[in-house]
């Protein structure tokens, strides 16, 4: 008779709890610091509960959240992130489809060129990119678009790579069936392949959102060399930190504030990432 609590089960349970703690621990520390008062962050907190501040308060949160520029920067970052997703998906998905389905001479070269964009560190390519956005025909584009285009440069290789993988898992039978029934390749792509590929592409979209939201180097240079009265959030945060060494409460609060939208966004798109979307199509 099998015991309900075998040694093996206890071990795995322990391992699971341990892993969760390791992941959540830094977030907890950040949270603890963000609600700390001055005495707490110098000494480390209340005793005999050393992990909780003496006088928890949300003052730092109030301070930053009541700052108008914080909100305008955050909104700016959101707009940029979504625009980046739209541009990189719009370019990347059809490109990936072509690379996944069609065999043409030079396909290896094309793939290498696309991926080689990411071989260069951001800092080494940022100056030429920023200069590009100063050129006459580009300069007068809205700043949101310019930053989004810059972010697309960074995110497009990943989108293409992810999308190629997604399209390759979709059986070609679906397209052949549509073709035999009279659908054009475009119709088959938009009405059949894309809906089936949605969960996989959503993963790519989340990645690009994160990339854009956190992007500092490109955002900084592109906005600095252009006329920008609103700047993306990471750049704005840098301006807040100033010359003096910032207190941990500020940093913790800002970090959590920046992380929040990402967590919320991920929860929302999670339902589109249900595995097994293609189950039932074949066999």
């Amino acid at each position, binding site marked *: 008779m099998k015991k309900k609590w075998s040694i093996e089960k206890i071990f795995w349970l322990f391992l699971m709890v341990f892993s969760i703690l390791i992941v959540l621990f830094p977030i907890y520390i950040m949270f603890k610091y963000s609600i700390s008062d001055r005495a707490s962050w110098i000494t480390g907190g209340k005793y005999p509960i050393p992990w909780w501040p003496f006088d928890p308060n949300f003052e730092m949160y109030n301070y930053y959240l009541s700052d108008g520029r914080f909100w305008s920067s955050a909104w700016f970052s959101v707009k940029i992130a979504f625009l980046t997703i739209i541009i990189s998906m719009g370019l990347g998905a059809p490109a990936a489809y072509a690379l996944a389905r069609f065999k043409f001479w030079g396909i290896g070269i094309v793939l290498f060129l696309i991926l080689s964009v990411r071989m260069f560190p951001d800092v080494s390519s940022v100056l030429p990119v920023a200069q590009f956005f100063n050129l006459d025909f580009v300069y007068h584009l809205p700043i949101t678009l310019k930053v989004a285009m810059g972010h697309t440069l960074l995110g497009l290789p990943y989108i293409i790579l992810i999308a190629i993988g997604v399209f390759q898992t979709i059986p070609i039978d679906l397209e052949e*069936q549509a073709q*035999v029934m009279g659908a054009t390749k475009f119709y088959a792509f938009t009405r*059949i392949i894309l809906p089936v590929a949605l969960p996989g592409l959503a993963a790519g979209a989340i990645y690009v959102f994160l990339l854009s939201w956190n992007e500092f180097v490109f955002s900084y240079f592109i906005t600095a060399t252009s006329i920008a009265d609103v700047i993306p959030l990471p750049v704005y945060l840098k301006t807040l930190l100033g010359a003096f060494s910032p207190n941990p409460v500020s940093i913790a609060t800002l970090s959590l504030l920046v992380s929040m939208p990402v967590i919320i966004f991920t929860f929302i798109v999670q339902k589109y990432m249900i595995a097994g979307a293609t*189950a039932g199509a074949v066999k």
Partner: protein
Amino acid sequence: MAGLRLEHIQKKYPNGFEAVKDLSIDIKDGEFVSLVGPSGCGKSTTLRMIAGLEDISGGKLLIGDKLANNVASKDRGIAMVFQSYALFPHMSVAANIGFGLKINKVDKKIRNDKIEWALDLLDLNGLGDRKPSELSGGQRQRVALGRALVLDPEVLLLDEPLSNLDAKLRVKMRTELKRIHKQLKSTIIYVTHDQAEAMTLSDRIAIMKNGDLMQIGSPTEIYTRPANRFVAGFIGSPPMNFLEGELAHENGNNVFINKDVKYVLPASMKSYIETNISQKEVVLGMRPEDLAISLTPATNGIEGVSIITETLGSDDFVAVEVGKKLFSVRTEPGSNFPTDKKVYLTPAEDKLHLFNNDNATDDAKVRFA
């Protein structure tokens, strides 16, 4: 519904490989024709050429007397069911079935009527709103069939549609397909590697090997008068028993001789041998059910040793060692034939098969029916 004609159809790939060499088949309106053969024989390639998914390297394809080589798939009047069904997973059953109609901009009311008709015909009533992932294998297969049937195609192409079903369901769906064929009188081209499926479903069977047509004829013809050794060995389960040897003449009779066997061929075969046998090396074939087995010596028989018996319920099969070959002989169920005994096999004289032993091409003789 219309007929279909393949005239010297050829498929050659850029690297020189010929998947289909020279195929000519005339399919009549309303006929159910199966393309059967081992993997790689070219049957699926042929079907795909008919569907328009592969270019035709040579020859003519005529659908309903119209040249269709360069006609787009959707204008050929065909509908195809894939081995994997290829149901669109994000669409409901009804949407799947109505897909072809929607693309061709059929009026919504007519479309819905046709979908209802298909659901009813295939026993899928009430499942219209379900997604493919919520259906069983047999139901999915019927949805794929329904999707093809609503288009009212001239020719229906089926690519191993039953391969993914379990044995019991396969037998049930075979009957369903036959019923639908009878009801709709559709022209159907059916690709399968399962010879039993082809035998039970088809009006005619076309057997292919390595891109060549080995024989085409009705199931009975193929079974009783196979044109060559390949067809003889491919159709029928358990397969036909073969003996390789030489054709000799003794006392005005044709005699089959090899290391272990000397068998006098019946006089009734004389004319057949004169017309068809062109060489000394021959293959003698006998089906398990056409052999009588006995412990008493026979004057003109084949000697062997009984090894084991297998019971299938409706038949018993005795494995007999003849020289180095293993023969399968059918006996009455429950007869419990003794094993490890010297036995004598007497074939039914009107059921013997004799072929040229052309090992080089393994028989290029093709029969048309």
